[in-house]
């Protein structure tokens, strides 16, 4: 019902609030994932209603909105994790690299290799730190020899900013690390298969402020290599780390804009109320 009120959900298309500082002027970003008319039902109830959004490469896009607004559901559409829920029905286009990811022909395993995921609660495998990283690349035949594998493990851990902390205890269980370290281990695990996109579902909600800051710095560095799409409940976090922000409400994208504009000058009343903390 708010579709008409909402601006066209593409970047730079919020003409009613012209912004001096929109970043999209300076950076012309390449498209990573294109979503058109995406509808999703859990059984009878519709959770996503006609979503249209373009997600850009090597940027951090934050998905914000009150609980139950469909942002996590949308995130899971991007690597078809919703397939695991039997009652889910999806319509619409999620296009990556010119291919519709929801097509039967698309192998969800191949999709998940290119679209990695980090979950809300750190969930390292109950194996060694080394094995947590090495497992997936080995499974995907990205590495064949042991030295290669060692190298890849080190690189992934370095990229995740965890190497210095764990280099002497690579063979201890991943679950022995602290919460923040576990989450960085999960990020390292995700980037070890060299995906294009990393989905993060409230990656810091189970962490303390210091660990959160570390992860946020990490996201800032990782966006040079990866497209990051993160769900967050934390307004400040979205403002800090995201280049673009999409505001979800009741299964619709109300507003999508570059973060500065979104927070300084939201185009819609709903987004403004949410951002200023009037509900959520």
């Amino acid at each position, binding site marked *: 019902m708010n579709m008409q009120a909402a601006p066209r959900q593409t970047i730079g298309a919020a003409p009613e609030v012209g912004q001096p500082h929109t970043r999209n002027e300076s950076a012309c970003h390449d498209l990573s994932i294109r979503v058109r008319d995406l509808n999703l039902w859990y059984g009878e109830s519709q959770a996503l209603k006609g979503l249209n959004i373009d997600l850009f490469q090597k940027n951090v896009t934050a998905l914000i909105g009150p609980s139950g607004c469909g942002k996590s559901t949308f995130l899971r559409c991007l690597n078809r994790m919703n397939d695991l829920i039997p009652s889910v029905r999806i319509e619409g286009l999620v296009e990556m690299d010119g291919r519709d990811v929801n097509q039967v022909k698309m192998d969800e395993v191949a999709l998940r290799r290119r679209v990695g995921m980090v979950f809300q609660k750190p*969930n390292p*495998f109950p194996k060694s730190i080394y094995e947590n990283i090495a497992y997936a690349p080995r*499974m995907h035949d990205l590495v064949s020899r042991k030295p290669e594998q060692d190298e890849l493990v080190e690189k992934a851990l370095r990229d995740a900013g965890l190497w210095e902390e764990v280099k002497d205890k690579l063979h201890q269980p991943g679950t022995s690390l602290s919460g923040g370290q576990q989450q960085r281990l999960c990020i390292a695990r995700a980037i070890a298969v060299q995906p294009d996109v990393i989905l993060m579902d409230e990656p810091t909600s189970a962490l303390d402020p210091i660990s959160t800051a570390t992860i946020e710095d990490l996201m800032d560095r990782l966006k040079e290599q990866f497209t990051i799409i993160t769900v967050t409940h934390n307004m400040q976090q979205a403002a800090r780390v995201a280049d673009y922000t999409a505001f979800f409400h009741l299964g619709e994208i109300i507003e999508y804009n570059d973060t500065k504009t979104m927070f300084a000058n939201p185009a819609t009343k709903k987004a403004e109320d949410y951002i200023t903390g009037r509900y959520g």
Partner: protein
Amino acid sequence: MSQTFDEISSQLRKRHRRSARLKWISMGALGLAGLFLLWFFSDMLGKGLPAFQQAQIQVEVDYNEDASRMGRAALDPDLSRLVSRTFERMIPVQIRENPELLGTSETRWVLANAQVDQYLKGHRHKLNEQQVVLVDELLAEGRVELKFNTNFFTTGDSKMAEASGILSAAVGTVMTMLVTLAIAFPIGVMTAVYLEEFAPDNRFTQLIEININNLAAIPSILFGLLGLAIFINFFGVPRSTPLVGGMTLALMTLPVIIIATRTALRSVPDSIRHAAFGVGCSRWQVVRDHVLPLAMPGIMTGSIIGLAQAMGETAPLIIVGMVAFIPDVGASFTEAATVLPAQIFTWAGEPEKAFVEKTAGGILVLLTILIFLNATAVILRKKFERRW
């Protein structure tokens, strides 16, 4: 109007009394159960421990010409009535196999018969008065003695109580259990994996689930009938063998293993599955590399308990003919064999008094094995207990 503490206390008194009464009743029930258990164990130990000792008698064995035809001739006629007939029967065989024995003689300890044994243990016996006097004399001379009964563990069943042992039944049990495990474990685990990780949740799978739960509660003798009808009559599997017994018990153990495995799989948190799917595992890789290893301790525990249950099972084995007189230790899966509980059942039916302690002794051996198995299951569970 608020009430004073005293008023409230007086109202509460009745409630407290009731909860105290309930506590005493439940403790009483527990105590009663404990008492029965204690009674059972002390009775079994009291009856069964003597089975681990057996009377032996020192006799002069004279390998003469007559003895090569009839073993009894090798012994003093009075003493020969005290010696086990299994020993006497062996004398001619020994001479035939070892001709240079002929003409020699030796003094050795041999198995006394069940009556001497029972007399020494203070049980009812059938010795006549002269024999009692003779045994008392021998006892004073130190020529009759209760010794550790190695025989019980190294021989099979025998019609002579003093010579019967449990080895053939124990070997039969091991072979039967091997067959059971080899069939029930892989099928049970794979069934559970399919139902839990792959199958859609619909009417059909729910029906299967209900049926599996029902199967676990079916009286075991029905599995015996099924085994008889299908394995023996239809497929022609040789009867009385560890093969058919193991297959029948596998039917019985399957639902136990399936249910235990499903529980173990369900206790693996979804976050692990999501993590594995997230890095691009196929469904089978998720199960093989992540879920199954984590569920394995639980699966092992359930399987061991299922196996222990099968090991104590007699009814279905009666139907497939595994309750039989098996004096020789079996060598293959297709030879007639018996199992421990069936051996106990056989002994319990013997009219001779000396078999009572054999029965109790057999029960002790079976119980020891079962306690050992269940303890292993508990230790496995404790050791690999994991928190997420």
